[in-house]
């Protein structure tokens, strides 16, 4: 990046907020569906699988945009540790956004399930049918979901800390449409 920007590009902001809504919805759908026997279970599962794959596609797109467009720099006076924390947590978020839908897809493959997205639309298996593998991936899908939720809470806390306490423009860089003066 040669030119320094103060905000993420509109495309980046659009992707960030669209994904934020979808991912949070997916976490609630997921945790809700595995704890009910009510008929809503099947409705939630039917939303969960295609939406998870949409997130996988969006994160691929988002990473490409991010590599091409870069990001606005963090404030110079931000302590080194917070700098590091910001980078590490964003890296972790990207990693989990990839891992979580892939785990979902792979665990169904390893469980010998057809990976039905909608009606006749099915995905091919990406893992061999194997009980031990299924067990690991299924547990992975749960623990990655918890980790993702915890990381998002931390991320939210940090964003609010920047916006309300430091008031250093970091929150604005993901919120505002126009460059601030």
């Amino acid at each position, binding site marked *: 990046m040669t030119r320094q920007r103060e905000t993420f590009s509109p495309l980046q902001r659009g992707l960030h907020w669209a994904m934020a809504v979808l991912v949070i919805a997916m976490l609630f759908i997921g945790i809700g569906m595995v704890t009910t026997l009510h*008929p809503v279970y*099947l409705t939630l599962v039917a939303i969960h699988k295609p939406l998870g794959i949409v997130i996988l596609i969006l994160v691929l797109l988002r990473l490409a945009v991010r590599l091409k467009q870069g990001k606005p720099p963090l404030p*110079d006076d931000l302590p080194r540790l917070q700098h590091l924390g910001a980078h590490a947590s964003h890296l972790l978020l990207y990693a989990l956004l990839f891992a979580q839908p892939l785990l979902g897809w792979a665990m169904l493959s390893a469980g010998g399930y057809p990976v039905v997205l909608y*009606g006749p639309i099915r995905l091919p298996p990406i893992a061999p049918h194997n009980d031990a593998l299924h067990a690991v991936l299924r547990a992975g899908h749960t623990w990655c979901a918890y980790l993702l939720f915890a990381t998002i809470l931390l991320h939210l806390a940090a964003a609010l*800390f920047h916006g309300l306490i430091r008031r250093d423009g970091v929150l604005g860089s993901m919120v505002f449409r126009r460059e601030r003066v």
Partner: protein
Amino acid sequence: MPHQPHTIPLSPAQIALRLAGIGAVLAVSGAGFAYAGGWFSPARLTPARIVTALADRGGDPLGHRRNHSKGVCFTGDFAANGQGAHYSTAAVLAKGDYPVTGRFGIATGNLLAADITGRVKSMAIRIVAPNGAEWRSGMNDSPVFAVATPQAFYEMTQAQDVDPATGKPDPAAMKHFAKTHPGFAPFAAWAKTTPWTPSWADQPYNSLNAFRFIDAGGDRHLVRWSMQPTVPLDPVPVAELAKLGPNYLQNDLSQRLTKGPLTWHLIVTLAAPGDPSNDATKAWPTDRTHVVVGTLTVNQTQPEANGPCRDLNYDPTILPTGIQISDDPLLPARSAAYAKSFDLRTSEAADYPRKTPAEGSKP
């Protein structure tokens, strides 16, 4: 300059207030997640609770299915005669031969039960079409199911809980259940009067739950289906059962298959208006239209430990396009509970190692 810091500093009180605000946002978010996950609703009937209750009926089925725990695998094929294609666009109902991976079982959570003592026998099938579309079904030999709702299923399961003091369920609990659940009566009558047979081969296997077939014109047909046996009933007096040994059904099946394949005709029943779609305790009148849609041929049986059915979940909601679930509340509950049971048993592989029977030993 990017990120110009604000000039007006915050007072310590302001900082404290804002930090508290951030804390509150986090607390509310975390609580919302826990709420969605049922942490604040211990009374919620969850898949985990129902599956735990199933495993509490004695003979802890670690590594195994939490219900219908004892069984054997089979392989064969389904020859569709094409008649089903008038009512459903499902690929497996178009005229043709499709491979089947199946399982016979008995409806108990007790692995150590003599299979002959299973009042309810079951057949599970997975039929795969060349295009990859799958039809999975778990069927019982009773003409109706014992309960109509997941809640009633749970209560029935609890009534079968083994009392650690006696090693048996409390007989009063089941009596109380029957009294408080009138829908149980038709099943109870069948269980009491139907002859016992020492074979899986001579039994019909019924979907019990209702489903919908969708035809090429988009019309929906409410259906139930049944696998009808082609060998004569071979009843034995109840008193004889105990003498037959723990694995009689498995041995009978192997024996019969050494002489040739076993077949069942798949018969689809079309509902008439007013037939209940959401109550598996109620049989439909016998004069409904029946359509023979094909023949299941069972060629081989395999011990479950090494068999192809072991690591399959016969979730009855895994359906090809052209077949859909009805509004029967048991179906979503079955899907959720079977997934939980499957997740548990695949993670307990150490308790159920794959093994080949020792040289010379009979299964």
